[in-house]
């Protein structure tokens, strides 16, 4: 069949219901954050072929609502752990764009001094606490971070993003079990984009609902429309509340669609692992377009406002790339730093 994994959400309809609970500034800010990430990703994509960014990239175009909605429920002091698909997480959590682009350009001014590249966009100042390029690697680490907060009695929630394939790694099961056992203040945010690189779920798992599986660890688990930034936010906010209240972990499954290739620039649907109709189907549920539609209906944005946003974003992006490109490379001495801590 052409559309293997279709959109099952409420589309534009969902926004009305969730929207009412939030003030307009908040509604607009979510839109701005998504638009900003989209434009940044597009510019990275546009320049990638110039080979100035000698790093793998895993774009989140089409998946902006999950990062933005979830992070809007987090405080700066809350922790976010991530995988290889870091761009959206880092930016939504408040990571510095200049440091991100410098990192991708292998400059010493990069957020991790050019030691990590795009899969290690870490900035502890804003709670972007750690990432792993190993699928599932960050999941138990996030539980450990939550355990630390619990032991220290800190008012801090920890969230970890994971993909659908990450649920196949045994360590994810181990992490759910331990988090449930200890009522660790952690939120498992599963972006189910139906694919692992170019492998569909059907070649990796029997047909099942990931959130029902998580629920058998006695973890409150919900499925939420991953292209509806408001639905994502509300689910995340409830989960974070539960964590803060000491009620333990939550598992959130958000169906989303990756509109680009797993890695690199451009889309690779033409290679045949998924049908063009499937991508086009999901393009009809672009999280940013859906939210814009909602905001316009409520007269919260108009062409002028959008134009201002675009200009603001464009300037920021241009400046950030300039910063990155004008930043110095690391020196040989840098290689020997931070191998061991004193």
């Amino acid at each position, binding site marked *: 069949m052409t559309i293997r994994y279709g959109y099952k959400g409420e589309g534009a309809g969902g926004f009305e219901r969730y929207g009412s609970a939030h003030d307009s500034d908040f509604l607009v800010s979510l839109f701005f954050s998504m638009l900003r990430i989209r434009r940044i990703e597009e510019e990275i994509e546009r320049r990638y072929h110039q080979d100035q960014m000698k*790093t793998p990239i895993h774009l989140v175009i089409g998946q902006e609502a999950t990062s933005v909605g979830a992070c809007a429920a987090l405080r700066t002091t809350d922790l976010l752990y991530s995988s290889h698909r870091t761009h959206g997480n880092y930016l939504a959590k408040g990571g510095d764009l200049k440091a991100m682009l410098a990192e991708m350009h292998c400059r010493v001014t990069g957020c991790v001094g050019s*030691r990590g590249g795009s899969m290690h966009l870490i900035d502890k100042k804003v709670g972007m606490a750690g990432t792993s390029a190993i699928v599932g690697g960050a999941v138990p680490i996030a539980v450990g971070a939550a355990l630390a907060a619990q032991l220290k009695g800190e008012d801090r929630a920890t969230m970890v993003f994971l993909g659908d394939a990450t649920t196949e790694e045994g360590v994810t099961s181990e992490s759910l079990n331990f988090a449930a056992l200890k009522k660790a203040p952690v939120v498992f945010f599963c972006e189910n984009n139906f694919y692992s690189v170019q492998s569909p779920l059907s070649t990796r*798992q029997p047909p099942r609902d990931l959130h029902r599986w998580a629920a058998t660890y006695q973890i409150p688990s919900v499925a939420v429309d991953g292209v509806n930034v408001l639905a994502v936010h509300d689910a995340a906010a409830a989960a974070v509340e539960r964590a803060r209240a000491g009620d333990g972990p939550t598992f959130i499954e958000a169906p989303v669609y990756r509109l680009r290739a797993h890695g690199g620039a451009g889309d690779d649907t033409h290679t045949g692992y998924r049908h063009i109709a499937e991508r086009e189907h999901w393009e009809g549920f672009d999280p940013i377009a859906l939210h814009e539609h909602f905001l316009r209906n409520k007269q919260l944005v108009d062409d002028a406002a959008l134009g201002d946003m675009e200009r603001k974003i464009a300037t920021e992006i241009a400046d950030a790339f300039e910063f990155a490109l004008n930043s110095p490379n690391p020196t040989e001495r840098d290689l020997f730093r931070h191998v061991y801590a004193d």
Partner: protein
Amino acid sequence: MPWDEGLVNSLVYDAPDPAEGRVVSYVKAINEALTISLDSDPAVFVMGQGVDDPSAMFGTTRGLQTQFGSDRVFDTPLSEEGMMGVCTGAAMNGMRPVFMHNRPDFVLLAFNQLVTHAAKFHFMDNGQTTVPMVVWAAIGRGWGSGAQHSQAIQGLLLGVPGLKIVMPSTPYDAKGLLLSAILDNNPVCVFEHRWLMKKDGIVPDGFYRVPIGKGIYRRRGDDVTIVGASHAIELGVRAAADLEAEGISAEVIDLRTIKPMDEHIILESLEKTGRIVAVDTAWMKGGVCAEIGCLAAEKGFQFLKAPVARVGLPDIPTPAGYTLEQFFYPDAARIAAAARSLVR
């Protein structure tokens, strides 16, 4: 998704002379070995993340599923340890699995099954079972592979009894050694190097084997022996060429297989040159370099005219950035310098 495609394609190797035979790419050579094995033995099957996807494990598995069906060539869940156990169980029961991984880093998730199960069953059950399986992975380098996608783990596995470790450096060996590995009745790790995949070489048509456990002279010389395998010996050959210009005659031994290691060829060469430089794509401490260096001082002491030298990775995780990588990875010049220091 081989994100380093562009990088690898930019690498340049001398083209082989078609007059010498059939010119085949490194990737195609592996693909031929898999095809021949699947074709000749119904017990062989190939599995791994994305072996059936458009990138086809760097192209090595291209077309295999179409030709042999999805029972014998299949994608797997993201469950390295579980799938390693599945291979072991299948191998214990008459199959010959080939389990392919993008990176050796992912094999670390399966060490319990590989090291404590696959490698030991034949011994533990007194030979009732054999475990003929191949674990294939390509060592990554460059384009931000970094600390978690560039690990060469042969050194970690050298001390594991029951395992064999193969590390080809040419398309000819990649095919011949993989064919031998699949026919071997023990678990065999085949570690390729991503950068070799751009190489073309003279590769015979059809079936042939390169023996596991035998090294080969890539170049004869009298002053110093450069020994190692895979991409490291590729650099060793280049270093030897540079040394020749200075009048230093280096002998280059490609071990081809790290375990079992061909001690005889190492000692034979050492007896002549009296000097040895051990090279490896992995960390120098306690790995392949250390084993070769210790072997030289243990069994070849009477031949040694100079200290043993090793050229591998420093005791530092792999940095992701381009500039830092240039400082991190040894090159032909560094191997040449090590050899020079022994001779002068």
